[in-house]
């Protein structure tokens, strides 16, 4: 299995694998497979849609080598492996003869390539099966024609075709050329493999296609790309978002050996969207010289309107907003009357600061401008957005921008924004078309990010005399992602509110969700799990607080609040978004939420006695059309030192394609949840980020990671069932389960993140 990540342009597909030796990448006719439907959901609703033409994604060489093209960004979710597993399985290919290549960014050709929203498999599993089945049927037809027998008598058998009656057999490579000349079977004519006969799908022992390269240092990320005659650049950007260059002196910088040029980059007006922040770029013969040169710049900035952004003051603003009525996002019953009549009222405010994605590979890319064209080699989750943004800053057509997708050294949402790639493109043009590698230092990454929002979540609940919840009021206040892109945005969007604020399935007769205004003063963007993090943190903490007020076991109370298993149309919970999935096929299934709660509790030994100073907490959350519940077990010693001996996470994402990668994603999600809950904080003073590197923006290291993480995957009924997401939904329940466990262990309720030293005696 080759793991070298290369990019296959159309020309390479046609010519590069050995002219005339392979096939299923023959001439492409017009793509006519999109089905007409009034309202589109899922992958079909994405720009570019989903493509399932096998000629786009599969090539079979005469020697039998099957090359599968992956068009998703590989950023650790293992998609290059899982993607190939599905196609190879459906086409009955021998895994040992499969290699994976990487598609360049080309949405018109390959369909939507945005790798975010936990939707690679959710949107593509069935299309990948169709691709594999079509390829298999074309190969079978070619063999049938050669033998002069009906295709119905030909069976595919692990990289070869068999005619049982005559005992004849042909390898895939032997019929590849003939198969390439055949028409692609209609979707209705495809015959899928019996899932009982899957060789790879659902198997847990498939090695990563990039495993060898990664463990030997050969894997190439955006930051690793080298081009002939390449220059290296770093940028001094305005320290306050929206600030501009006023005055600068570059003489000292230019004296640094290796520094070639200092380039002025324009600052885009606010809201600046994906555009770069502008500033002064130092271009040099190597990164070290560029860094030294940048230190020698003397710059005066006009800080602009966000200079007063101060996290402590802003928190007070959010709290004030949360204590007054705001725009109603969902309303049922009469919350105010019910709260007044309640036997017991509970009020709590939760705070979670900004977070930075801080992928281990900071934003980096290489660009080369040639005339009115630009080539990009970079880590990006969004090749199409990259093309459009580069085209915009260079004033060239997007089709003139070629994006070669490298491995992505961690994304978590940061690399959905191509500001850094646009910088590289501008610098290559400024250097007369020499290739330029633009690197963010870690400090650049933390100071010039697209941060996870900051929020105050205020909850008020009412219990009747028997401890039954009768009223639920949730005010969520947070600057919105849309404020990064459009002026005057002060409310969370439908997608943000639909990430666990409005769409709670609680059995509570009176329920209202409000979204008071919040102004944005920095760039807000997607962070793995997005608004599910603050909403689940607050909602699932509050459920445990209500349980405590009712004198009930938190798990039993949570199950009662969820109620019996039923299918809820998300629109009935004021969620018209539902991750852009069909509200019927992807209804909110409370039975599945109950299922993960019960499974996590059972596996974790919920209710079994623990030593003094230890406790368990539980939390559950639906996001990205998947259901996750976690039981976190903590130990807090006399000095207030927190350790996490064990986490059980139960997960229901429907059909599981690559169980090993699903487990890996959940292991990572658990620890990233622990990290943001215990340590994560980006704060501002005078408009500037206060954290400079991993000493001040701390993240969980190995010694603080839970000692024992147990992942429990819920069995799926069948492979035709809708798939949920995997990359993100493991994160949201972790922080509240951890906080609930701390409460169980110590009696202390932490409502302000990060935990940091709040437990210290």
């Amino acid at each position, binding site marked *: 299995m080759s793991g070298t990540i290369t990019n296959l342009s159309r020309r390479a597909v046609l010519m590069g694998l050995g002219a005339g030796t392979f096939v299923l990448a023959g001439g492409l006719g017009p793509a006519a497979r999109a089905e007409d439907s009034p309202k589109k959901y899922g992958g079909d609703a994405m720009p570019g849609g989903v493509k399932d033409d096998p000629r786009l994604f599969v090539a079979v060489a005469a020697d039998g080598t099957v090359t599968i093209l992956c068009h998703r960004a*590989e*950023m*650790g*979710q*293992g998609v290059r492996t899982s993607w190939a597993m599905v196609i190879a399985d459906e086409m009955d290919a021998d895994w040992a003869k499969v290699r994976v290549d990487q598609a360049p960014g080309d949405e018109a050709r390959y369909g939507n390539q945005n790798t975010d929203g936990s939707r690679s498999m959710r949107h593509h599993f069935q299309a990948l099966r169709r691709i594999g089945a079509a390829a298999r049927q074309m190969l079978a037809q070619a063999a049938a024609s050669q033998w002069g027998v009906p295709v119905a008598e030909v069976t595919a058998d692990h990289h070869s075709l068999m005619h049982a009656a005559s005992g004849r057999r042909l390898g895939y490579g032997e019929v590849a050329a003939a198969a390439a000349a055949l028409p692609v079977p209609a979707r209705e004519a495809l015959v899928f493999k019996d899932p009982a006969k899957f060789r790879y799908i659902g198997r847990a022992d498939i*090695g*990563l296609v*990039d*495993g*060898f390269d*990664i*463990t*030997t*240092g050969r*894997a*190439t*990320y955006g*930051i*690793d790309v080298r081009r002939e005659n390449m220059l*290296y650049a770093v940028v001094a950007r305005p320290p306050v978002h929206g600030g501009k260059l006023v005055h600068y002196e570059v003489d000292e910088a230019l004296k640094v*050996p290796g520094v070639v040029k200092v380039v002025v980059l324009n600052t885009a007006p606010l809201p600046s969207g994906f555009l770069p922040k502008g500033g002064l770029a130092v271009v040099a013969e*190597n*990164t*070290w010289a560029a*860094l030294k040169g940048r230190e020698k710049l003397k710059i005066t900035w006009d800080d602009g309107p966000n200079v007063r952004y101060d996290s402590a003051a802003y928190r007070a603003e959010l709290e004030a907003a949360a204590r007054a009525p705001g725009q109603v996002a969902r309303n049922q019953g009469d919350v105010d009357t019910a709260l007044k009549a309640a036997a017991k009222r509970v009020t709590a405010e939760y705070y979670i600061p900004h977070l930075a*994605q*801080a*992928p*281990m*590979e*900071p934003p980096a890319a290489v660009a080369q401008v040639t005339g009115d064209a630009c080539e990009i080699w970079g880590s990006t989750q969004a090749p199409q957005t990259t093309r459009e943004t580069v085209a915009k800053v260079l004033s060239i057509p997007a089709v003139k921008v070629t994006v070669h997708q490298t*491995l*992505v*050294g*961690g*994304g*978590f949402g940061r690399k959905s924004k191509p500001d850094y790639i646009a910088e590289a493109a501008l610098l290559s043009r400024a250097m007369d078309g020499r290739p330029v590698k633009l*690197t963010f*230092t*870690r400090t650049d990454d933390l100071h010039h990010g697209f941060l996870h929002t900051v929020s105050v979540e205020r909850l008020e609940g009412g219990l009747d005399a028997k401890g039954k919840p009768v009223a639920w009021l949730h005010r969520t206040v947070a600057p919105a992602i849309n404020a990064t892109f459009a002026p005057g945005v002060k409310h969370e969007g439908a997608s943000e509110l639909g990430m666990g604020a409005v769409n709670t399935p609680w059995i509570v007769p009176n329920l209202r969700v409000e979204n008071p205004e919040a102004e944005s003063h920095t760039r807000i963007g997607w962070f793995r799990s997005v608004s599910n993090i603050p909403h689940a943190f607050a909602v699932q903490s509050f459920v445990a607080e209500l349980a405590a007020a009712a004198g009930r076991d938190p798990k039993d109370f949570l199950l009662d609040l969820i109620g019996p298993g039923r299918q809820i149309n998300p629109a009935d919970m004021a969620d018209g978004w539902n991750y852009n999935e069909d509200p019927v096929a992807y209804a909110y299934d409370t039975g599945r939420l109950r299922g993960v709660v019960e499974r996590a509790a059972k596996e974790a030994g919920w209710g079994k006695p623990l030593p003094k100073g230890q406790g368990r907490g539980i939390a559950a959350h639906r996001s990205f059309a998947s259901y996750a519940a976690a039981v976190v077990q903590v130990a807090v010693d006399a000095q207030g030192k927190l350790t996490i001996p064990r986490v059980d996470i139960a997960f229901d994402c429907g059909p599981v394609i690559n169980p*090993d*990668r699903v487990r*890996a994603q959940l*292991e*990572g*999600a*658990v*620890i*990233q949840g622990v*990290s943001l809950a215990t340590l994560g904080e980006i704060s501002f003073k005078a408009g500037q980020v206060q954290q400079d*590197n*991993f*000493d001040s923006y701390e*993240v969980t*290291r*190995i*010694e603080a*990671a*839970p000692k024992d*993480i147990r992942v429990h995957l819920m069995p799926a009924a069948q492979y035709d069932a809708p798939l949920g997401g995997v990359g993100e939904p493991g994160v949201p329940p972790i922080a509240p389960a951890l906080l609930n466990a701390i409460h169980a262990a110590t009696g202390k309720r932490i409502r302000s993140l990060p935990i940091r030293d709040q437990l210290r005696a």
Partner: protein
Amino acid sequence: MITFTLNGQEQRFEGDPEMPLLWYLRDVQGLTGTKYGCGEALCGACTVHADGAPIRSCQTTLGDLAGMAVTTIEGLSPDGMHPVQVAWRELNVAQCGYCQAGQIMSAAALLKDTPHPSDEAIDDAMSGNICRCATYPRIRAAIKRAAGGAQRKTASSGSAK
């Protein structure tokens, strides 16, 4: 001029002795397996071996290296079959993979000095290496597996080494 060896090859460097080894490896030598992650020895992505000991190449200047032998991930084994690399692949440790070269170099150095490390020794040796994908549980498991593998290999070959 500074003389040292890099993956067994003698190097003579006549540039700025203050240049960090990291940028020399990546930009001058084109050995991009060693990663930049923080530039301040806080994350371990740039870990290489100097005379067998793990060092952060972002904080080690070429001047510091005079006469030393540097090994990078590219030179850890000729065929990628170091027991740590093998264990890493067998357990599918990597997610995005970016920090893994640094993790592997730290783990290999640990096992050289401590063939059968305790959990605490593993945490101590690996706490300088951040993984944002949080592959830590599998890193722990892979180090233990590599330790076992090294033991088996030694036993079967009869070598004392």
